[in-house]
């Protein structure tokens, strides 16, 4: 027995809660949010690198949570701590590695076409914020590397007037940026990025190279060949 689709009554339709829910379901129905099929052109290994980036980020966060819970001294003093720190470092390397391959792939696909520019924009901002997140980690290491990076970076930050607000020699400040503020921003960006991908679907291929476009397709072909490269 299938229940009839729920239609909110008039009184409900004026409620903010109802309207938010209705809108969310309309924009992102479950089969769109978590589809079990993809267009036939999604057939290349290049498509896995977005997911690999997210997987690497999960390992970065998990190892980072352990390091944070044990306190910033722990990894210098124990073998297990150093092991977890190594996992954190290598997960970061894989995270950036996969993200760059993903980025190259999406660039060569022109993946911003057909109203998908926001997906590119959120992805690009994620990359830049992630660099900041990694950087604050490097200056939070409490070793010679972080001393030197802080010493070098301070001049650049001072030169543009933000060296006191973002003081790389202030461990308390940098640690806060590294373990909570920037990771939170990266998580929010990734969530937004993935929702945008799910909403608009994976970008279709550029128009094919055919001597003559079939008459039915000329309208869209013109669009694909000339305009609509942007949002």
């Amino acid at each position, binding site marked *: 027995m299938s229940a009839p689709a729920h239609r909110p009554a008039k009184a409900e339709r004026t409620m903010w809660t109802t309207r938010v829910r209705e809108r969310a379901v309309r924009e992102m129905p479950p089969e769109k949010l978590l589809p079990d*099929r993809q267009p*036939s052109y999604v*057939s*290349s*290994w*290049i*498509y*896995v*690198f977005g997911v690999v980036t997210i997987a690497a980020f999960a390992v970065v966060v998990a190892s980072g949570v352990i390091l944070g819970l044990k306190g910033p001294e722990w*990894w*210098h*003093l*124990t*073998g*297990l*701590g*150093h*092991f977890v*720190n*190594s996992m954190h470092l290598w997960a970061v*390397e894989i995270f950036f*590695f996969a993200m*760059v*391959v993903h980025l*190259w*792939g999406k660039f060569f696909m022109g993946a911003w076409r057909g109203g998908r520019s926001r997906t590119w924009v959120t992805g690009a901002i994620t990359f830049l914020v992630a660099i900041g997140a990694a950087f604050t980690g490097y200056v939070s290491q409490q*070793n010679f590397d972080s001393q030197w990076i802080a010493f070098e970076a301070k001049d650049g930050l001072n030169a543009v007037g933000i060296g006191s607000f973002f003081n790389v020699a202030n461990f308390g400040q940098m640690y806060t940026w590294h373990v909570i503020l920037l990771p939170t921003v990266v998580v929010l960006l990734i969530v937004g990025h993935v929702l945008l991908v799910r909403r608009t679907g994976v970008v279709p291929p550029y128009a094919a190279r055919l001597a003559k476009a079939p008459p039915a397709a000329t309208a869209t072909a013109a669009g694909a060949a000339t305009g609509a490269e942007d949002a």
Partner: protein
Amino acid sequence: MTGTTPLGAIFDLNVPAHYLSWHFIQISVPNFVVIVLMIVVFVAALLIPFPKREREP
């Protein structure tokens, strides 16, 4: 601050790196390896055939 590693470091990388120089470009061998690997993985991702799957109209 000498962290002992119970499982780690079969290869000890705590020795100064080798550097490649070309005009003003200087790059450490480990960084170079990372960049080359990225390119290799990217090209491999494009070239290696993806498993064929069933069509669902």
